[in-house]
């Protein structure tokens, strides 16, 4: 029954995506650990971490697509959930440092010692345990999203207004986390991690392990999202996206459906953030900035809104482009990103996957044109 629920959302696109992920999960560990460092097939630890980062962003894009592509909520604050998940993981990693910090204090993280704090704030308790952090990674963003959505959807805040207040939310969180008194390291955030679950966080094998975990999380997220979208619930969500009032008049309590999708999406974003932090080694409040939320939206738009697979593709492509541009042509990156926003909204409203579908529809007619006698060409 449950298996059927999860399998019913899977189509050809899903098959391709999951196959690619499976290949990555096998090939990357082999290439990173099983080849000689001078072999052309060898992947450096840095590259593995970079790929892992792209896939974290892909999971974030996927979660955003679930609400924007299928429920029509354009969130300009999804980075808030991503970063909260990241902070939850970061807190666990800080506790793992133990007495190896600069000040060698076993009870307090370095920045608290620096601020002359004498005991751990209550909300840091429990983060010594991985299981607790792993739960919090989903619970914290989920709770915030639930509370926010509960108020917003019940009072029928929609459209641009909703987008603006999601932006206000992430902006407020950014300002809050910049404060030293919050107890999250202020400006510098959480960094200088040593180990995760007892493994050295810098080691190549740990990096590969984290990468595989990210691939698995992305695959699970994808299967879950497609199952939700393909279910009866998903049909209601799509109906809400297209004509919310009509759905409400038919007797559905649309705010509950929206709240479910919104909270689920926030949890997924939290997981993405949690996997992101150990791979890049730092989490700081600038991740909350509204700009990074909007950047996530463009990944979805580029790949194809409402396709689930598209955003994954979009996130990887755009971030690959970003890595390339910021290294090779730093002046041009913002032009490229800005242009991408404009071009995609103007010419690719359905993204790359939508374009592929459009082309496929046109192909038969083009085939007919090609079928005309060659001799008549150019006459």
């Amino acid at each position, binding site marked *: 029954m449950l298996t059927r629920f999860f399998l019913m959302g899977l189509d050809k696109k899903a098959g391709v995506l999951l196959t690619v992920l499976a290949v990555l999960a096998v090939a990357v560990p082999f290439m990173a650990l099983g080849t000689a460092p001078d072999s052309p097939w060898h992947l450096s630890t840095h590259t593995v971490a970079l790929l892992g980062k792209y896939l974290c962003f892909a999971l974030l894009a996927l979660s955003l697509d679930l609400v924007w592509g299928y429920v029509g909520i*354009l969130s300009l604050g999804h980075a808030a959930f991503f970063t909260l998940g990241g902070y939850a993981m970061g807190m666990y990693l800080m506790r793992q440092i133990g007495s190896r910090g600069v000040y060698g204090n076993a009870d307090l993280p370095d920045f608290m010692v620096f601020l002359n704090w004498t005991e751990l704030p209550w909300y840091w308790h429990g983060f010594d345990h991985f299981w607790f952090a792993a739960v919090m990674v989903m619970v914290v963003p989920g709770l915030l999203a639930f509370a*926010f959505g509960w*108020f*917003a959807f*019940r*009072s*029928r*805040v*929609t*459209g*641009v*207004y909703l*987008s*603006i*207040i999601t*932006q*206000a*939310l992430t*902006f*407020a969180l950014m*300002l*809050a986390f*910049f*404060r030293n008194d919050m107890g999250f390291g202020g400006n510098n955030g959480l960094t200088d991690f040593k180990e995760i679950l007892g493994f050295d966080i810098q080691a190549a094998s740990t990096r590969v392990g984290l990468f595989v975990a990210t691939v698995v999380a992305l695959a699970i997220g994808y299967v879950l999202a497609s199952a939700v979208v393909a279910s009866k619930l998903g049909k209601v969500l799509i109906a809400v996206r297209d004509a*919310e*009032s009509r759905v409400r008049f038919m007797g559905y309590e649309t705010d509950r459906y929206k709240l479910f999708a919104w909270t689920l999406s926030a949890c997924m974003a939290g997981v993405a953030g949690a996997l992101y932090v150990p791979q890049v080694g730092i989490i700081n409040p600038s991740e909350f900035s*509204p700009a990074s939320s*909007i950047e996530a*939206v*463009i990944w979805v*738009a580029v790949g194809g809104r409402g396709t689930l697979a598209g955003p994954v593709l979009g996130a990887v492509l755009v971030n690959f482009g970003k890595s390339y541009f910021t290294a090779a042509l730093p*002046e041009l*990156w*913002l*032009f490229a*990103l*800005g*242009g*991408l*926003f*404009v071009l*995609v*909204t*103007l010419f690719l*409203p359905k993204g790359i996957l939508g374009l592929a579908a459009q082309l496929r529809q046109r192909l038969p007619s083009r085939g007919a044109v090609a079928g005309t006698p060659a001799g008549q060409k150019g006459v």
Partner: protein
Amino acid sequence: MHRALCWLLAAFLALAAPAAFAADQGAADLAPLVRGLGAGSYADTEKALSALAGTGDPAAVPVIEALQAGDLHVRKADGAVVVAKRAGSGFALTDPLTGAALGEADRNAVEKIRINNALRRTISATLGALTLMSPDANTRRQAAEAVFKSRDANALDALNTALAKETDERVRRAMTQARAAVLLAGDAADADKVAAVAVLQERGDQDALALLNGAANSVSNGGSDAVKDAAKKAVASVEQRLALWGAAQNLWYGLSLGSVLLLAAIGLAVTFGVMGVINMAHGEMVMIGAYATFLVQEAFRQWAPGLFDFSILVALPVAFLVSGAVGVAIERSVIRWLYGRPLETLLATWGLSLALQQAVRSIFGPTNREVGAPSWMSGAFELGGLTITYGRLWIVVFAFLVFGALLVALRKTWFGLSIRAVTQNRSMANAMGIRTARVDALTFGLGSGIAGLAGVALSQIDNVSPNLGQGYIIDSFMVVVFGGVGNLWGTLVGALALGGVNKFLEPYAGAVLGKILVLIFIILFIQRRPRGLFALKGRAVEA
């Protein structure tokens, strides 16, 4: 260049010659006293010092200052007192009174005039007394203020003498207050102290409050109960007064911030109200306006430096036109293809804002550009306990002028009528023959132009950098969303309310926490009124 230097030198000499002559005359009287400073023992120095003070001649001030700084030396050869400054291995000597160069001397040829702590106190008292007698009223007032701060009991006699001769009303007041401060801090008679309390109560600022508080709580210097009671009453009255002025100051800051928000947000309100489009590139229009101001000022610096004070006035129309033109270009090239898809418009304009920022960064560089203030916008004046800078005052005035002009334009012109018609019912306006596409383009241009005007104002109080607009965009959104769409009054109320609340929270919660609280308040407020404070009323389910 050389010629200018020569002229300068000539002018300097012409000015300096009579001054030197005058100094020579004074020097004749003072010279023996100055020579006495180097007589030997501390007691001798002190005697000479009091004699110097007794002359009341301001020419003695640099000599005593040199003594204080430890620059005064005795030339061993002839016992003359000279100012010796280190030059290479030896000393460069000058006459302490005339400032004339006396050549160089070996380190062993001069001996420093030593001073001890008792002497140091006498020196500062003497200096205070001499400056209190200075012919320049401002110097006298500053000296009185200095005594007020130091509460030096040694200065009391000098203060009394000076007060008896003083004619300038303001200086007199400063001296009376300084005297009161000295009396209250020292051990004077009770009646004097009570009178001093009254004087300080009248002064009524933070410094006076600190003094009065000291008097009210003094245990050590045995202030009597009468003095304490008077001081306590005075403290209460001063505190109340200060609290009132503090509130007024907050109100002014709030108004100032509110007018800045208003300037940044009204352009946004116009475009959002008419087209339902949030223009994420709005902040960059502000930034372009600021850079237009910079360019206009550069042009003035280049070709008409004498007219620099008018550069801002020229920058206003230039910034309006430049930002407006960019706005129309954006509308024609991008936004008009996206009508009916507000969320996509939001993304496209965000992309444009990134590109515009980078363009400005590539052209002008990432660093801040210097935009000067015209003379009529710099400086400040005091209004009771308030300090108001002219720059801020002009921005408040300007914001309200722009608001009023826009209001008139919307109410009284044909273009304004079309805008209102399109805002209220687009399809009906279209049917009545209004070319909505053109209205859209012009409205967008208008909104962007106003943003450009905001840029001129903000260039005076903020750094002109490619990121200028970013700092204002979220605040502008909050104002528009809070105030409600399609109603300029909503924007006005929203801007002033948010500015005021922000500044009133700041003293209690700190700047950052205050801002966070305001954001949370807006998020909650939107739940209550999803369409803002002054929403257009309509019956549509989905507005």
